[in-house]
């Protein structure tokens, strides 16, 4: 599973993203893998499903069944600590933590620029290049950057 990348953010594996909800099974032929979508309409979901099936087949689990899990809904809180470091080095600001505190979702925690670390940034648009990202601009180094949204 760790080999399967997110097609939109290839620096992250699906384990980093926290979308593999379970892998269970008594025998090699009866493996069940639960995947959850990040956003209802995320077009990467189908691609990921296909990539997981291919990776399982390569590892000798051709008969595995891949199941979609909706509840509990995916949260950016499920990104692993390693994922947050990878995102930052890739030029995407990781989500400000703890969606479980709803004030943070509507408040304005400062988002640091992933290039120059300045906190002098402003939101350009709530919606970036993919559903999971917002579009920011750093007013210190003037570089635009993506912010992985809290959800």
């Amino acid at each position, binding site marked *: 599973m760790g080999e399967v990348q997110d097609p939109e953010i290839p620096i992250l594996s699906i384990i980093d993203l926290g979308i593999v909800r379970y892998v269970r099974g008594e025998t090699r032929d009866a493996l069940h893998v639960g995947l959850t*979508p990040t*956003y*209802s*309409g*995320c*077009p990467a979901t189908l691609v990921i499903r296909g990539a997981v099936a291919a990776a399982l087949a390569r590892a000798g689990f051709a008969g595995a069944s891949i199941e979609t899990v*909706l*509840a*509990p*809904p*995916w*949260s950016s809180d499920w990104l692993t600590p390693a994922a947050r470091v990878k995102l930052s080095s890739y030029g995407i600001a990781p989500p400000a933590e703890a969606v479980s505190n709803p004030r943070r*979702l*509507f408040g304005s925690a400062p988002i640091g620029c992933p290039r120059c670390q300045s906190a002098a940034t402003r939101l*350009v*648009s*709530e*919606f*970036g*290049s993919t*559903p999971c990202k917002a*579009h920011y601009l750093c007013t210190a180094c003037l570089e635009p950057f993506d912010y992985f*949204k809290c*959800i």
Partner: protein
Amino acid sequence: MSANANQGAAADAHLTYVLRLADTSLILGQRLSEWVGHAPALEEDLGLANIALDLIGQARLLLSYAAELEGRGRSEDELAFLRDAAEFLNVTLVEQPNGDFGHTLVRQLLVSAFQLELYEALANCADARLAEIAAKALKETRYHVRYSASWVVRLGDGTPESHARVQAALGELWPFTGELFATDSVDEAMQIAGIAPQAAALEARWSARMDAVLGEATLARPADSVFPWHGKRGVHTEHLGYMLAEMQFLQRAYPGAQW
């Protein structure tokens, strides 16, 4: 009525209720996607496309569920592409044409704020499947409300031209909002089943949010209309047919075509 007929009516109401939710998301998602490549700026093009994507994703989950409830072996795609206008059960508001950018954002605010309250209630309803779809959609809808409210404030409290345009859009679209909270036998059956929330409570919260946003946007709240719309029962404005003609063209011309 016999026990069997009672059960049949309850099952029909359940299917109808889920289809109304699904169609409302699908039709609004399709309307918004008409903006792709045409929005005033690239950022807003992406924003509207992202909201459209969320809505169509929600519609897919809901239509798949509706197809299972129906139990006639139809797929989500068959429900989306092979039903005619009178079989669509979306609220009339979402099929209204986009108009200008401000008009689209006013429509979005009216609907997203409604969906926010609705999904919040449905996330804890007695139908576990609907509850998990609503919990997922709720997170996305919070962003839709934030985006559309911030634009309505910016345009309403903007230049005389932008103010006049969104005020006019609000006047045109407001009469359709009554249908969001109108209840019929389907809603009542779903309320009794512990699935649908009480419409009056939803309306009170929606109305308070509208007052807050419109106040900040310096926009006047239009008077409520007494004319009832019945998109939820399949009675639509003329706009839906044209839209479906485009949306369904490929499946009608090449039945069963796949990507």
